[in-house]
């Protein structure tokens, strides 16, 4: 997990033998306060909706993969900033 000024990257979790997913919907808006493991967004692959949890607590600072976007294995979905 890389940390820089933009915050901590939210990466697509390892879902097994899956090469890519499609972002269905974000369940939180930019600026939302997150607890670790909060439901963050839904992705779909193989007729399966998978709910991606927040990897850490913080504030959702950026959505990188918008709804409808295709994300490859390990790809960046968004970023989480720490509380000030």
């Amino acid at each position, binding site marked *: 997990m890389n940390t820089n000024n933009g915050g901590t990257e939210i990466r697509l979790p*390892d*879902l*097994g*033998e*899956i090469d890519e997913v499609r972002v269905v919907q974000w369940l939180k808006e930019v600026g939302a306060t997150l607890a670790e493991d909060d*439901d963050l967004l*839904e992705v779909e692959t193989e*007729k399966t*909706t998978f709910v991606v949890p927040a990897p850490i607590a913080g504030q959702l600072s950026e959505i990188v993969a918008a709804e409808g976007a295709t994300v490859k294995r390990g790809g960046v979905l968004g970023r989480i900033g720490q509380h000030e």
Partner: protein
Amino acid sequence: MAGLGSTSRPAFHLPLGRAEYGETLELQRALHARRKTGAIPDTVITVEHDPVITFGRSSSREHLLVSSQELEREGVALFEVERGGDVTYHGPGQLVVYPIVDLREHGRDVKRFVGRLEDATIATLADLKIASGRRDGYPGVWVEHRKIASIGVYVRGWVSRHGLALNVAVNQAHFAMINPCGLSVQMVSACDLSDQPITIERVRAVFLDRMSEQFGWRLEEASLAEILGDEDE
């Protein structure tokens, strides 16, 4: 492959018989929560639904081919749900299987999970002397160009709900109300592919055996009260 040896894990089967979609959906959500906390082992719900059309997360309304008045006249309910996939029809003569499974105990692999459901279906149909298979990129089970089983799953906290619908003897006219999965494919039922009479009870029994092999379960029938667990238990 996991067998029925000493390594098999206990799992529950909850047979609902015939049930309305909405109440089964609520039940799935309750069992999902209990599976997440580890209060229950992997649990398989089997059910035959009253006629219903459901939209998954990737549904297009254009794939519903009839008006709401027609649905009402036919007594078909409509639900928008969290599973993956496009529009699906459920109704009498269809074996619906909802595995409430912790994927962390089965390799944390979404594709393998779906593959196990498909393989259990293919093995069940083989037992009925019906040859079926997978189609790359099109989850579900196919008999040549026709679809015999549909898949639509939801995974949260690595626990699944929703699942698979296998057509045993479905009213073909009801399938005409939708463009199934948005693929313009034809649906087919097992009974149309066999010379022998096929009952849903037999298909269910075989399916549960094949599924237990796939997941390494020692399946035990449980009552709703046991699974929902009364507070004083």
